[in-house]
């Protein structure tokens, strides 16, 4: 008697929340988590604190491997899903392995966005999404004293705080035309600028970066319309785009992220999406909102799992917590935590 196979693609907060709920809801199923990173699940929201030295690496990790064994959840790390065939209910891994499934939660999160004009300087800037990224930062920060933070997305704020706490000099580029939160709401903009200054960062209004040049090992020169700036390192925080490219052509309805209803189900039955990669339909809004942030991801992961297990739980995103950025509704609790 074959057990049904339920797959979670991704191993971030949404996936981590979903897995045990799935196991509880479907005790007999085979459950597999497929994560691209070679390391086990860790708290991405704590990365800035890790960079700042406020927590140790061990504190990032959440579940020992025993956790998965006890729940009979198969954990496949360092493996990449390259395509999914929803009619055959098969996914293909990077090394040409085909895995059949009966239900799926896509929780691949987002990947860093580097705006087109800066794409050619990709090699010179640092991002902060993974533990590996964090370690690069930690190593860099032993050698440099100044950091330039560009992009001004939500993470940039927490990151700036973290860097400042190390006693480094931070220049924060404030782009009024940024599609992110502060761009649209004047008061929030002002609040943020003051907050940054209070913390000790130099806030600069800058909307256009012309070029970046690495003049020395640990020195980067940035040319903008607001003048020349120098820093030991440049951090790019232009927000995330849902990591769903591998699903193009699969028949899944995707806008920027995977479109799901208020039950987090996609246009395919028993296929769900949760976390940063999803756009969730809000029946009152009659529109899709994008979730950002750690708590949202966990919440959506939980709901997706419960629903895949056969329940019918709606997402609850109070209208008040939904903002629009660049025309898109965004739900985040994260900004409040900052």
């Amino acid at each position, binding site marked *: 008697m074959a057990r049904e196979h339920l797959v979670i693609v991704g191993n971030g907060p949404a996936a981590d929340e979903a897995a045990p709920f799935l196991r509880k809801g479907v005790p007999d199923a085979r459950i597999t988590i497929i994560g691209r990173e*070679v390391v*086990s699940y860790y708290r991405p929201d704590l990365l800035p604190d890790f960079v700042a030295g406020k927590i140790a690496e061990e504190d990032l990790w959440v579940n020992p*491997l025993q956790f*998965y064994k006890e729940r009979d959840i198969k*954990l*496949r*790390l*360092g*493996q990449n899903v390259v395509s999914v065939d929803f009619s055959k209910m098969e996914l*293909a*891994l*990077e*090394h*040409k*392995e*085909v*895995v*059949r499934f009966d239900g799926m939660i896509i929780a691949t999160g987002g990947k860093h966005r580097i705006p087109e004009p800066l794409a050619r300087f990709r090699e010179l800037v640092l991002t902060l999404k993974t533990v590996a990224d964090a370690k690069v930062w930690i190593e860099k920060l032993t050698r440099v004293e100044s950091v330039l933070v560009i992009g001004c997305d939500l993470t940039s704020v927490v990151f700036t705080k973290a860097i400042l706490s190390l006693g480094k000099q931070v220049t924060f580029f404030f782009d009024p035309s940024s599609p992110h939160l502060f761009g649209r709401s004047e008061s929030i903009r002002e609040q943020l600028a003051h907050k940054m200054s209070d913390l000790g960062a130099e806030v600069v209004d800058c909307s256009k970066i012309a070029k970046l040049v690495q003049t020395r090992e640990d020195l980067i020169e940035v040319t903008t319309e607001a003048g020349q700036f120098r820093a030991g390192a440049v951090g790019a925080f232009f927000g995330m785009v849902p990591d769903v490219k591998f699903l193009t052509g699969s028949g899944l309805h995707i806008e920027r992220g995977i479109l799901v209803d208020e039950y987090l189900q996609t246009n395919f039955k028993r296929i769900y999406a949760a976390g940063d990669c999803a756009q969730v339909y809000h029946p009152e809004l009659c529109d899709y909102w994008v979730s950002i942030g750690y708590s949202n991801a966990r919440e959506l992961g939980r709901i997706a799992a419960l629903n895949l297990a056969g329940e019918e739980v709606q997402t609850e995103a109070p209208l008040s917590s939904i903002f629009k950025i660049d025309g898109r509704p965004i739900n985040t609790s994260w900004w409040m935590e900052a």
Partner: protein
Amino acid sequence: MLRVDVTVEVCGTAGDGTIAAGGLLNQAMSESGFSVLGFDSYPAEIRGFGRCVTRSRIGDRDISALEDTANVLISLDDSQSRARIPFLAPNAAVFFDSNPPTYIQEEDSLTSLLEPGTVLCGLPIADLATEASGSARGRNLTALGGFAGAFGLDPAPFRKVITRKFEAKGAQVLDANLRCFEAGYDFGREQLSDRVPEIFGPRNITEGPERVMLSGNLAIGRAAIDAGLKLYFGYPITPATPIMEYLAAKLPEQGGQVVQMEDEIASIAAVLGSYYAGSISMTATSGPGFALMTELIGLGVMAEIPAVILNAQRGGPSTGLPTKTEQSDLHAAVFGGPGDSPRIVIAPTNVEECYHFTMKSFRIAEKYQTPVIVLTDFFLDNRVENLPMPKAGEEEKAHDNLYPSESDKGNYKRYAATDSGISPRSIPGTEGFQYTATGLEHTEEGIPDYSADNHMLMSAKRHRKIQAALADLPAPEVISPDGALDVGVISWGSTFGSVLEAVHTAHEHGMKVGAMKITSLFPYHEDLIRAFMNRCDEILIPELNFGGQLADLIGRLHGKDVIRMNRATGVPIAPSLILKEIETLVMEGGK
């Protein structure tokens, strides 16, 4: 703990070049200055379809055993390699083809079985090989290259050993093979080096004479050659056949020959005949063949004719497990056969001892005028170690027959009951000293005699003679701190290698533990063994047989029951298992 202690496995199906890759790896690591111990397993059937696995343990200190787990798996055939997954250490690195010709279903794939934490090192092995050389035949070298590149190993020794292996086949073949290796190496270095753990440590050059890779069987063969052997009589049997084949090629160079007899009985008969005529010879066999030799070994004992018999033990009883290792012929070797027939039994524990013990056996057989049985086991015979090529001193090679003196002429007693038990032995061709060697009980003159007193006299003589051999046989060695010990671990054969490692680790943990190596199984050094046992609270005897044959032999020397660790698994006992036993005993002893 070793700074470098890595076990690398190459796994494939017959025809993948698995064994060749493993062999090149062993040699390259040896050339790089590491200690290497390698052991291959072949499919049992002659035709393909079987799994080939090579296991190589690489370290910066002398290695005496293989562990159960592997730190690196190089898969040349994923469906075969699946069986090796349970033996991977945590955080092992697995090299596999990331672009197989067809899609693989989850239930057949290698990666679906891997524990999280395993480092996946996929590389397009077949593609790289084909790109580099025009065909995928050299994929084993590409995979080897991928491994070497990923771990940042010096490629020069690899190129050297590949060249040595293929240069006889012409420049084109050699070039193609080198390219396959390079293609894998470059990929590994560029794409995989940042994900693999740092387990090879700094490059290590061991000082001293040049090391060669030598298997137990080859060491035995070399010893026979160096001893001046001219005659080998034998019958093919796994795992002793390679000795015969090696000597078949080499003996003619020194005017000797291998004579393949019709069975093992004929083989031992011819050995006895040759020794009777004054010429050293030997035979090598395994359990079933050894059983056939039982009667004539008895003849050698009774008629006091020397013989050298090598028993390469394998799984038993009967046809047993021909390609698996075991140490279950001890009873047969020491006691096998009717009557009180004491004979000499020795057992090497590593490749170097295989050489020296074989060398020694010719002398001892001659001196004590008796069959000498050298017990090895499948693991010891087939594994390779790197060591300086063993050489025998002149003293080791010397002949040692006790000739009669001229004054005995006309009154020669071939079986004189001397104090030592050794009677002067005349060799055919010596005038005036003719005698008939017989399997019947006989007088000192060699005349058949069944009387009561004579049988007691001659039995005592033969037993006394064998006990006298203690002076010439290797004494047990003890590795321990001074004073009283909580646990003493006694073992023999290749199992001792595992004991040695376990005990060294125990020492590093501050445990009061000792190891005793017994190489002379009969006669055995009762006093020395008892002295060691008396220092120990508990005696642990690990051995690869079900009943505990060494424990049966010497257990009685301990004041109380010895603790038997018997394994009839067909695979060597891993040091970690022995260590666990030791730890348990030490803890229990504390209570």
